[in-house]
Structures are given as structure tokens and as C-alpha cells.
């Protein structure tokens, strides 16, 4: 922080003009922020709230009626049962090997990055494993895998032994100044996205878990962010379409995990961009499909009521079944427990967590959470849901 302050204080050396005479003479040309009397603002707010409630009620009651008739999943009663303070900026989360693992960045008063281990039985933090810099965490092949950066080796993947809770290997990525981002693992291999030449191209890098070495690199257009393993493929979300000021949309690339070759390009530019810390999840694979969302137009109008959840049939690479209007962004984070769990809301709004029934496509078991949910996981060993919130606690949700 001191370095950052010193950097910004350099601006104090810049001489400033005296604009007052110009201000006094100037003919204002643009409307500034509206000055709305408080009473009027309150009336407008109440009117909008009422309209919003009406829209929400219609949107909610529709699926609810359908759910009662067609539901194929077991009704749940999600209940927040713990809120665990584990550090200033908890971010990514994974579950496995008898624990829940969370990446944490402690920015003040001194910079520190670590992986926190939570004992799900006691909800206590039992260990903090320091790593130079941490971006994401995954479990698989008997280890924790963490994307980050080593002071000497640069961008790297850190292998952590879940038993000794120490870093057992560091895999350098040798991708220049790339940014290693999201990571997934199965019982033999590890895959991660790396932003290499933003925004032109990036890589999906494969690591062999038995040798801790990089085995393949697949270059993809745009800025690869999220990725998931499932339905026999590696599915990658890359930011591919840009406006002058921001990201306009993303594309999904399907890779063959045996060859690491690109086998399909899907929904080109139609997937709304993820925005948030490390990029919230935008993909989930399960129930024979890849689950994501689409929105019409370029740039995509976020918040458009035409945003919809879609399932891409893994057998045909085509959108299958009914699309589900959502109206806000779709951040799926788990396919455990008989459905696709996701949070909705704008990128940084207080969210609602819901489950979509993969058969009936109804949205069910919704519940609200305080704070900005960044990532989530359902621990397959305990059946509990764990959510990270921005600059807030890790939340445990019992589902039954």
C-alpha cells in the first residue's frame, strides 16, 4: 500500500491551472447529475419499487406454479448456518479432502495471500497456507492446485498437499507476463486459463498431475477466463468481443481433454461477460449439457430481460430444451445435489441463490444472501453449500 500511495502521490507534482475566471464566464453546455428533490425522489423510488415488485411477483409466480406441477427434484430448505470471518478478501472456494479451501488476499496493513482451510465440522479455520499470490483453487489428483505467481518463477501453479497443508511443488507456466486465472482438476490432470496477450489471445494450459509438468498449451482467441470439466470435455469461456470501453460478450470453446484440441466454438460473442473478482463462474457442466447464458445484441445489454439460461447438449453442441428467461446475469457454480446452482443479479449486486431443475428447467429453492457472493461450492462429502462474499465472511448453507 505504501508503494501505491507513493505512486499516486507523484500526481501532486503536476501543476494545476486556475480555472476560476473560465468558470465564471462559462456558458454551461451539458446536463449534470439531476437535482431531484428528496420527496420527488422518494415517490419515484416507491413507484419503481412497486413496479419492480409486481414484475418480480409475476416472474416468480410463473415458475413457482410450474414447479408445483412438474418438479422432479426433492424440495430443499436452504438455511444459512454459519458465517466465518477468514480474512479481508476471500475469493475462490473449493471443497475436498475433508475440508473447504478458500483463497484469501489480505491487503491491509501488509500484503498477504494464502489459502485458508476450514473444517466443515467445526466451521473453524484450521490452517492458513501462504502462497506468494493466489488467484484460484481446485481439488483433484490428491492435491490442491492454486493458480498464482511466484516471486522468482513468475506465473505458476502451486501444488498443496492437503494432509501436510504445505506447498509440495511449484509448476512454472513459462508464459511471460501472463495472468494465470481459473483452474480445474480431475484425478490425473489440471487445466487452467491464462491471459497471455490481452485481449487478443490466451491459453488453456494442461498440467500432468503425476509429473507436475505442463503438457499442452492451447491458444484461444480473446481472454480465456472461466473453465469447467465435465461431460467428457473441457469447456472454456473467453472474452472475445469488445467495445471501445468494455467487454461486449464472450464465446465458449470446447476442448478434447485427451488431445487438448479445439473441437467446437459455441455461442460466439453471445455469452454475457463476467465481471468481478477473478471473473465469477459462467459455466457449469452436468446432466448431459453445458449450462450458461446468452443475451442478444452486441454489445450485450446487461440486465436485459432477454438474458436467458441455456443448456448446450454435449452430444450435439446445440442448444437443447427450453431456454429460461432470467433477466440478470447467470453465475452457475455447482451441479451437485440434483440441479444447477447459480447466483443471479447484476455482477456485484446482493444476489439470490437458486437451483434450476435440469429436467423441467424451473427455478427453485431460491434464497437471498447478504453481501456480494463471489464463488460457491457444494461439498460432496457433507452436502453443504459454501459461499465466499466480497470483503465478508464465508457462508455455510445447509440445504436440507
Amino acid at each position: 500500500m505504501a508503494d501505491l500511495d507513493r505512486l499516486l502521490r507523484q500526481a501532486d507534482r503536476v501543476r494545476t491551472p486556475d480555472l476560476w475566471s473560465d468558470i465564471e464566464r462559462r456558458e454551461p453546455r451539458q446536463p449534470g447529475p439531476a437535482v431531484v428533490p428528496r420527496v420527488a425522489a422518494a415517490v419515484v423510488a416507491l413507484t419503481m419499487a412497486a413496479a419492480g415488485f409486481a414484475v418480480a411477483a409475476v416472474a416468480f409466480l410463473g415458475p413457482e406454479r410450474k414447479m408445483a406441477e412438474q418438479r422432479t427434484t426433492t424440495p430443499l430448505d436452504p438455511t444459512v448456518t454459519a458465517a466465518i470471518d477468514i480474512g479481508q478478501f476471500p475469493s475462490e472456494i473449493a471443497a475436498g479432502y475433508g475440508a473447504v479451501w478458500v483463497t484469501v488476499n489480505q491487503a491491509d496493513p501488509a500484503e498477504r495471500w494464502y489459502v485458508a482451510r476450514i473444517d466443515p465440522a467445526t466451521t473453524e479455520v484450521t490452517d492458513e497456507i501462504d502462497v506468494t499470490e493466489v488467484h484460484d483453487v481446485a481439488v483433484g489428483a490428491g492435491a490442491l492446485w492454486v493458480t498464482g505467481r511466484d516471486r522468482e518463477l513468475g506465473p505458476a501453479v502451486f501444488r498443496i498437499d492437503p494432509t501436510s497443508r504445505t506447498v509440495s511443488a511449484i509448476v512454472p507456466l513459462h508464459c511471460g507476463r501472463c495472468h494465470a486465472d481459473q483452474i480445474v482438476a480431475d484425478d490425473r490432470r489440471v487445466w487452467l486459463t491464462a491471459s497471455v496477450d490481452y485481449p487478443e489471445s490466451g491459453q488453456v494450459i494442461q498440467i500432468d498431475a503425476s509429473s507436475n509438468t505442463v503438457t499442452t498449451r492451447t491458444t484461444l482467441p480473446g481472454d480465456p477466463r472461466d473453465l469447467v470439466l465435465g461431460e467428457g470435455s473441457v469447456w472454456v469461456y473467453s472474452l472475445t468481443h469488445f467495445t471501445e470501453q468494455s467487454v461486449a460478450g464472450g464465446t465458449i470453446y470446447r476442448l478434447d481433454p485427451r488431445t487438448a484440441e479445439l473441437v467446437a466454438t459455441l455461442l460466439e460473442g453471445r455469452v454475457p461477460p463476467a465481471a468481478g473478482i477473478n471473473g465469477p463462474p459462467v459455466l457449469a457442466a452436468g446432466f448431459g449439457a453445458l449450462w450458461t447464458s446468452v443475451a442478444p445484441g452486441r454489445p450485450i445489454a446487461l440486465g436485459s430481460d432477454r438474458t436467458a439460461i441455456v443448456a448446450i447438449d454435449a452430444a450435439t453442441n446445440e442448444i437443447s430444451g427450453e431456454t429460461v428467461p432470467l433477466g440478470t446475469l447467470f453465475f452457475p457454480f455447482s451441479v451437485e445435489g440434483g440441479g444447477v446452482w447459480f447466483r443471479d443479479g447484476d455482477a456485484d449486486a446482493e444476489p439470490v441463490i437458486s437451483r434450476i431443475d435440469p429436467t423441467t428447467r424451473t427455478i427453485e429453492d431460491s434464497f437471498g444472501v447478504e453481501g456480494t457472493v463471489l464463488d460457491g461450492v457444494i461439498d460432496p462429502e457433507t452436502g453443504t453449500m459454501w459461499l465466499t462474499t466480497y470483503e465478508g465472511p464465508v457462508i455455510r448453507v445447509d440445504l436440507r
Partner: protein
Amino acid sequence: MGMDVRGVVVTERVGQGIEALYRSDGDRLWRAVLMYAGDPEVASDAVAEAFAQALRRGDAVRDPRRWVWRATFRIAAGELKERRRVVVSADEGYEHSELPLQLGMALAKLSPHQRAAVVLHHYVGYPVRDVARIIGSTASAVGVHLYRGRRRLRRLLEEGDG
């Protein structure tokens, strides 16, 4: 008593208040916009325009300081959009910003939202909630911009040291 500002009668008290605000905040605001926009012309234009509008609106502006900061950043953002000068890729822009080289190069690597958040929070000292009001966002969104902006700046500083 009143003074004529382009045909609008503004009370002397309001005019003096706006001038006092300019004298207290003007330099800091101008530098903040310079860091955000990377262009002294945009900074001067946005600051002058916002204060001129505040003068014209007179008593209708309930909190002049908050209003001026918010108006200035919105005007600057509009100017950037209009002039198509938003820095999209690294190392573009900021060559003529008058900022020290290291600072200009670092800011050029941030997105506009990240720049606004970092400058208003870390340079000016506004709490996150106030930053959100100024740039028309939410506190949580500003938190995200700050997090990513800080991370990127730290990395740049490390690379510079190396």
C-alpha cells in the same frame, strides 16, 4: 444582492460558496480527473464545466462538494467517450498527460472504472461508498474495481522493480 452569471441570478452567498469550494477542492479534483482521463484538456474542461453548472444551479444543489465531484467525473467520462480517447490497451494514451512517466504508464494499464476507483479512494481519500456515488456505481462494484486495480498496480510496481 446577486451577481449575473450568464443571465442567471445567483446569490452572492452561493457564488462565494462555489468559489470557496473551487479554491479548496479544485486542484485535487483536477489532478484526480487528469489521472482518470490522462488528458489535461479533458480535466480542465470537466472541472470548469461542473463548477459552471453548479454556479448556475445555485441553491438547487444541496451538497455542492458531492455534486461537483460527481458531475466532473461524469462529464469527463462523457468527454472521453465522445473523443474516443478511452485507453483500452496497455501503453496507449497518457503520453501527453503531464503526469510523471511511471504513474502515467501504470494508470494506462487500468480500466476506466479501476482508474476512477483507485484515484478517488487512494489518492483523494474518499470512502468506497462515496466513490460509488461519484462514479454512479455500487459500493460492492467499486470494491471489485479497487481490488483488481490495486492488484494490477502492485504487479506493475513489482515488474518495475525487477
